[in-house]
């Protein structure tokens, strides 16, 4: 049994299917997280905060009370930089500052020590948040999500801010979507439902994995839908991030999104290299939370999130506790 201090939490976003279909309300989601044995939780504010983006103090207090009631630890308040909100222009510096400061304040009031923000915040504004974070005693971390990856020049700027003046209060949240190397089962099911012949789809996936160029993978009799989805497979699963890079930037990781889409069993994710990722984090000494972040609800509303999360936790524990690097 390997020693480690990694904690498994859950992003309430994993219960999107149940939440958006009104099977579970926010309290129901928290109750479910607790019943499943989770302690640390993340909330996507734009999803589950009914008064968002301007929640009242009353609501924030009510929410802090709910977390206490279900014995949950507030770990991460997830905010967006909705840069493309307006039809006529991107958000301005002042608008980004306003929403980011708001989220820091809401998070603090609800008891969260960390706000997840996004790539579009810009290095200049990210830096400008340092004084707010220090005054409020809050941490702010940018999520690194596919299609971004470590080698995007913007991220090198972010890392230098995190390691410089922002040290201790500014960090990042890798999302394992950056490591996904092949389409997941729900994606494939959807492709077939949209008309992709299953044998051709299997061939495309195989060709993509073995390095056959897209032009060759697209056969002459492919329909428009088949061409489009083949292109999506080639563009989306281009594996830009290397697992070793997690080790390289470990000092900047405040929190982690354990992204997964569909687990056929409780041992192995066929699309994201969890074995390599988790042993790298463990052996590198990561001591924070990994949030279970189930995202199959983007593709199929009939999957039971609880079963997926149970498989996910089992898989993580198996790898973390048993597997050699």
């Amino acid at each position, binding site marked *: 049994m390997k020693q480690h201090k990694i904690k498994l939490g859950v992003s309430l976003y994993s219960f999107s299917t149940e939440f958006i279909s009104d099977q579970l309300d926010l309290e129901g989601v928290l109750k479910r997280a607790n019943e499943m044995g989770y302690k640390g939780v993340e909330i996507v504010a734009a999803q589950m905060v009914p008064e968002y983006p301007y929640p009242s103090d009353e609501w924030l207090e009510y929410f802090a009370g709910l977390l206490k009631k279900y014995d949950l630890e507030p770990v991460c308040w997830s905010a967006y930089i909705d840069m*493309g*909100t307006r*039809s006529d222009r991107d958000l301005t510096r002042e608008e980004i500052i306003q929403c980011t400061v708001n989220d820091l304040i809401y998070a603090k009031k609800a008891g969260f020590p960390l706000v997840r923000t996004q790539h579009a915040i810009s290095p200049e504004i990210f830096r400008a948040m340092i004084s707010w974070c220090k005054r409020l005693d809050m941490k702010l971390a940018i999520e690194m999500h596919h299609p971004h990856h470590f080698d995007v020049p913007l991220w090198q700027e972010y890392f230098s801010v995190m390691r410089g003046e922002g040290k201790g209060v500014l960090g990042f949240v890798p999302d394992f979507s950056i490591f996904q190397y092949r389409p997941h089962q729900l994606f494939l099911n959807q492709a077939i439902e949209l008309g992709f012949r299953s044998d051709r789809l299997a061939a495309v996936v195989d060709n993509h994995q073995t390095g056959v160029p897209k032009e060759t993978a697209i056969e002459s009799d492919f329909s428009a839908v088949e061409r489009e989805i083949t292109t999506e497979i080639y563009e989306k699963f281009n594996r830009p991030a290397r697992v070793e890079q997690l080790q390289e930037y470990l000092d900047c990781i405040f929190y982690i999104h354990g992204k997964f889409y569909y687990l056929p069993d409780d041992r192995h994710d066929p699309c994201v290299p969890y074995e390599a990722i988790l042993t790298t984090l463990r052996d590198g000494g990561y001591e924070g939370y990994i949030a279970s972040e189930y995202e199959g609800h*983007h593709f199929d509303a009939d999957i039971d999130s609880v079963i997926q999360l149970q498989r996910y936790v089992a898989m993580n524990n198996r790898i973390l506790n048993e597997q050699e690097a």
Partner: protein
Amino acid sequence: MDFQAYNKILICDDEVVNVRVDSVTIGYEFKIKYPSYRGVFLSCIEALDFYVDGRKLDKNTIIFYLNGKQFLLEELPELFKEYWFISDKATIRVIDPNGIAAGPHEVRVFMRHRVPYTGYFGEYLVLDSDESKTLTVSDQQEVSL
């Protein structure tokens, strides 16, 4: 192909209801939700079309109700401070002195909407949600917002 599963929530199962003022029919209405896992400002809606029984409705006969307010469809792209919470239903009122006849009707909704946080390398992801559902008309009760 992300987001596709959320399209299923676009048209709500609620019945279509004739709207009357005292005994005067002024139209009918049904309900829709934002097809995503999260809320956005209405300005993310780039196009919104409605079809009833195969016929496209004149946009000037449609009123969009949300947050206790009324909007014309043309106003939606400008409403960058009107948030559509993911659990909230918007009411679509169609102004029509004939109301809608009892029985089933096919309602189709086409919404083109921008995912506002997706501009990783410049372009935002724009989704087309195009759903149809057969809705029943309730028994002509007196209802209005």
